[in-house]
């Protein structure tokens, strides 16, 4: 292995930018925007950009949680189901129990965080692999959402909750604001705080983390709880958008969230992760979907396109990084 020449190749400034986001992802996003702008006269407009942000918001919020968990070399397959569970518990709190809207919001968020906490505790204390624990939670949380609602959506939310999904202050959809707000906060946490750095270090070298005094288990519990909390938030937003708590909401979203993170340059095996990257990754998927919709391309082809872009982005990354790295 030739570490010496690798070190010489990239100047420090470019290096740190390259660490923050995967440039390939940004290039892919910009090329997509360029191509779709040329292909469709309706693509490049403020209102369509807001549409894309709105459509991407739920997957994006899940993706930020996934970014933290994957940074620490973990995996969370349960976020789609937790989204559904959060959506119905919040909706039931205000409907069946007649609680005030603020409690409904809190219930959604706490239900999500609770599921994440259980994931974290089972992973670290019971030492069941995260893949298995969260796969189990995928089933349990979804099942619980269906049981609680008899499989039927819970219609009708109070105004302030609906506003979270349908409000448009200054013309900007509230989910888009939440999406970008969560992006800003989680980006700060991941790149500037000990909490974020320790997530990355745990994923990079767990022994090093332990040897330097980082509380690995406690930290992992916090990371899974964060992922669950964000899934609860995503559940709240998606329920608010359709004014109902749908127990099947978010089915399959866990893979989209992971795809967004990986598209953005987060290493599936931990140690390297970026919230800005995940934002770009989620937008690549959103832009692709939106553009192909405008061009009246069947959604079957859209799935193929997203799959192909994922593999392409990671392949470009491998080419650029050269041999010898996972």
């Amino acid at each position, binding site marked *: 292995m030739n570490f010496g020449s690798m070190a010489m190749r990239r100047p*420090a400034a470019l*290096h740190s930018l390259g660490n923050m986001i995967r440039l390939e992802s940004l290039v892919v996003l910009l090329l997509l925007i360029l191509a779709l702008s040329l292909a469709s006269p309706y693509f490049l407009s403020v209102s369509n950009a807001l549409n894309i942000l709105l459509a991407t918001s739920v997957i994006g919020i899940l993706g930020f949680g996934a970014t933290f968990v994957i940074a620490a070399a973990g995996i969370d397959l349960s976020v789609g189901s937790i989204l559904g569970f959060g959506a119905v518990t919040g909706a039931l709190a205000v409907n069946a129990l007649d609680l005030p809207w603020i409690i409904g919001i809190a219930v959604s968020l706490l239900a999500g965080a609770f599921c994440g906490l259980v994931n974290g505790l089972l992973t670290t204390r019971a030492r069941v692999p995260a893949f298995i624990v969260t796969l189990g939670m995928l089933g349990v949380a979804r099942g619980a959402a269906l049981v609680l609602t008899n499989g039927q959506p819970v219609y009708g939310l109070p105004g302030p909750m609906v506003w979270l999904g349908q409000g448009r202050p200054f013309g900007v959809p509230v989910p888009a604001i939440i999406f970008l707000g969560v992006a800003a906060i989680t980006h700060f946490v991941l790149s500037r*705080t000990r909490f974020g750095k320790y997530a990355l270090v745990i994923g990079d070298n767990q022994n090093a983390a332990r040897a330097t005094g980082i*509380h690995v288990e406690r930290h992992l519990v916090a990371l899974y709880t964060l992922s669950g909390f964000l899934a609860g938030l995503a559940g709240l937003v998606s329920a608010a958008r359709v004014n109902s708590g749908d127990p099947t909401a978010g089915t399959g979203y866990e893979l989209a969230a992971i795809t967004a993170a990986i598209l953005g340059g987060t290493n599936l095996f931990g140690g390297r992760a970026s919230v800005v990257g995940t934002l770009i990754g989620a937008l690549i998927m959103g832009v692709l979907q939106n553009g192909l919709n405008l061009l009246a391309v069947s959604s079957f082809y859209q799935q193929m396109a997203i799959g192909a872009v994922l593999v392409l982005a990671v392949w470009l990354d491998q080419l650029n990084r050269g041999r010898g790295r996972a």
Partner: protein
Amino acid sequence: MSLLALKDVRMSFGPVEALRGVSFSVAEGEAVALLGDNGAGKSTLMKTITGIYRPTGGAIRFDGQDLKEKDPGEIRRLGIEMIYQDLALAREQDVASNIFLGREPTRRLLGLPIRMIDTARIEAEAETIIRRLGARVPSVRYRVGDLSGGQQQSVAIARALTFSPKLVIMDEPTAALAVREVEHVLDLVRELKRQGIAVILISHRLTDVFAVCDRVIALRQGEVVADEAVAETSMNEVVAHIVGAG
């Protein structure tokens, strides 16, 4: 009075007894070699001192404190640093981050009660310590995974020395190094002694041990089989202890 004192330290992994009542002590500024064949219990012993493992019996005292209930972070803060054989570095993090790993200084964000890592300070201080050690690391912003083996070791050493330790444990620090780099590490041990910092050196290379250490402790099957001043023993005698022929 000794800086570090182990008394009847025991460690079992299920039915396996890795340490069967280890007792020894290390004085301030003393360099002690810990020798033993593979599986003698050296690494386990060091991990009970640094808090990675919690001993199942006995007592470990350091600088007047009981270490038994303390976690690795607390033990580092008391002044014990260890340079691991695999260096325990985060390859994706840069040099400065690795040096300050687990002990990052923070500052408030805009005066709010939100603490962010003080990257500017970390980089400046890392720069200083790297220069003081004379390490040839091009920039503290480089990813550690991009550095050579020798440079990575410099980072691990820098991390161990940044927080004014009282005891530095080195696990096979010269095993993977070129001849000139070995000399550099041995000079470092001498320098630490001069500064009154105690060293525990785990090494298979007896010439290194005899060059810089004051005392040798030989471990066999989880027990101390020899604890002698370097001046009063010989390499042959030490080898005999290690293999159990003595």
